[in-house]
């Protein structure tokens, strides 16, 4: 029983990390209908920034979340303004192609700059764990990352529902034409959204970099998990990615306990298929976002 409980707790923590990585991806997809295949590369850029800051000035990776997010915001804003905005009205294949190309550029750029070495941001405390009754260990690093995931999701939710800028993002996502008629600059809002998503990716990278290893080749894995978490959770809801991540994490953990360990991904993707068959819009998603028409 304690073994199962341990697996569940660990799965929930892992799920929060999936959610943390996916929240920006889901935002961009929901608002702009752009499936950003370079998202995993953004996460890695955040991880490398936090790593370099840690090596250079000994900055704690969880504090490194802030500069990584700030720098990634600027990069994301510029990429959207100068690049993705050019094709944002084009069929989704074009934006897919563009972000895929961007991913190749970024990953190979990181390969040149940082080499293919595996890295992890060392801390004294991240691998320590709090022991709960029943011999259930809760690792500190993952707990902080999970708290960050929840905090960022709640913060993002507050931002889009309670601030003028946030509501502009929401409005543009719902109906770009109407938002424009209200005087909202879609170009700016899109760039802001993409910057925000990149910042969230950067923050996730810094946190993930301290609890696990990373190398440029991991970009695809991060994008894939973001994709699954976003689809599972559903679009059009800032809580969707976290919810999807949690479901993914727990299903993987349970699958790992009940079935041979090599089937964890089969279990997770099996769950995806079943949930999409029952609720095509995802667990918390709104069907509207999958069927909107933009003008």
């Amino acid at each position, binding site marked *: 029983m304690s*073994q199962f409980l*341990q*697996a569940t707790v*660990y799965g929930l923590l*892992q799920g929060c990390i999936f959610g943390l990585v996916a929240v920006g991806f889901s935002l961009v997809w929901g608002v702009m*209908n752009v*499936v950003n*295949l370079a998202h995993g590369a953004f996460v890695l850029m955040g991880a490398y920034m936090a790593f370099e800051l840690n090596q250079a000035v000994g900055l704690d990776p969880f504090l490194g979340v802030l500069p990584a997010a700030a720098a990634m915001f600027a990069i994301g804003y510029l990429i959207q303004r100068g690049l993705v905005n050019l094709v944002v009205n084009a*069929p*989704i*294949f074009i934006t*897919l192609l563009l972000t*895929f190309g961007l991913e*190749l550029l970024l990953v*190979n750029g990181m*390969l040149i700059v940082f*080499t*293919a*070495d*595996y*890295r*992890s941001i*060392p801390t004294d405390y991240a*691998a*320590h*764990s709090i*022991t709960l009754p029943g*011999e259930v*260990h809760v*690792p500190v*690093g*993952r707990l902080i990352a999970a708290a960050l995931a929840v905090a960022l999701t709640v913060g993002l939710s507050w931002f889009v529902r309670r601030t003028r800028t946030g509501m502009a993002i929401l409005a543009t996502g719902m109906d770009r034409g109407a938002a424009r008629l209200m005087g909202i600059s879609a170009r700016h809002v899109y760039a802001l959204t993409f910057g925000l998503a990149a910042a969230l990716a950067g923050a996730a990278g810094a946190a993930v970099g301290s609890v*696990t*290893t990373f*190398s*440029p*080749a*991991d970009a*695809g*894995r991060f*994008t*894939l998990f973001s*994709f699954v978490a976003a*689809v599972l959770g559903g679009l059009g809801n800032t809580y969707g990615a976290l919810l999807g991540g949690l479901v993914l994490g727990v299903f*993987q*953990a349970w*699958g*790992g*306990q009940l079935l*041979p*360990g*090599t089937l*964890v*991904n089969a279990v997770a993707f099996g769950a995806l298929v079943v949930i999409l068959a029952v609720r095509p819009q995802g667990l918390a998603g709104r069907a509207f976002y*999958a*069927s*909107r*028409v*933009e003008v």
Partner: protein
Amino acid sequence: MRTRTLAGAVVAALVLAGGSACGSKGDAGGGSDTGNGKLILGASLSLTGSLAKEGALTKEGYQLCQDVVNGKGGVPVGGKKLNLEIQYQDDTSKPDTAGQLVDQFNDKGIKLILGPYGSATTEAAAAVIERNGQVMADAAGADDKIFQKGYRRTFAVLSPANQYAASMIQAIYDLAQPRPTTIAFVSADDGFSKTVTKAGVKKATDMGLTVVGEEYVPNGATDVSSALTKIKPKNPDVIIGSVHLAEGVAIVKQAKELGVVPKIFAETVAPPTPDFAQSLGAAAEGVLGSTQWTDKTAGSDKWFGSAKDYAATFAKMFNGREAEYHNAEATAACLALALAAEKAGSTDPNKVRDALAALDEQSFFGPLKFNDVGQNVTKKMGVIQIQGGKPVPVWPTDSAGAQMKYPGAAA
């Protein structure tokens, strides 16, 4: 719009699954093996993708071989001195691409091939080599499966997969006091790692250890928590990880998170690479690793001298970095081809093949001698332990740099 989104999703999934499926096609010039006094070797390597790190190490080993051999005037073949020229292609860590690239080399008339990094790519390349009548010196494909297909043109300089875990179990059996009684295996699910685990389980059973767990995780996983959670209640004295770097780091890291404390961790492949100790910090202390080569390996040859000389040459060429066994095995593969061409007095692939089969030479890498399926079973594997943040050879004791610490893990 709905269908568009869905179609987009499908494309995205395909793209993610396929990664960059197109291999780069460099301009290789052309020419035969002996064009302009050159001995041209082809090397398909993982320069991007999931094995980019190990691919780069392999390339460095080949590069060092080329520079040293050419620096000493080149390979004497049939009265002429031929300079080595290695042509590289990127297989993007994909076996099918590795096979295609070997075919491309054949189309250009390049018959002598240096192996890719890893068993899966090597296995794919070996099949093509056999069909085309090329010859391959295998630097890093250790899976015994490659050599059970009756191929006659692939020769591995490295010790076979069945030795990886077995050597560490032997070291623990020889050196650990009190001797452990229980052992558990966490294995990646690729062919090489599975072969290592099967051989390790057999070895452990033969030695009288009780195998309390044999868990498999997806190749390249960074989360091995479910395997560890399953093993934890069985409280093994030894945990053997049959893994690569990502899984190897995850085992030690997550074992600490989950309170899994064996007396010692022993892992294949991962611990000898500097990234292992760097990313784990203090947690890496005491972890055992199996290695194909250390700078204390016995033997020497005319091109590279002893293992120590090789380490010095490597440090000089790569800004003081220490040579890893991945570097050394690559250089050894290149050396095997050079020695074979010299002995054959020709670059004809059939003659080089026969010379390789008959090769019996000492080298900085240990003995280079192949059995009738092309495996190097004469060479022994070594065992290292992370001590003071560095891998130190601890077994066999006659080429050890320090005593093995047991229990190893600083809990």
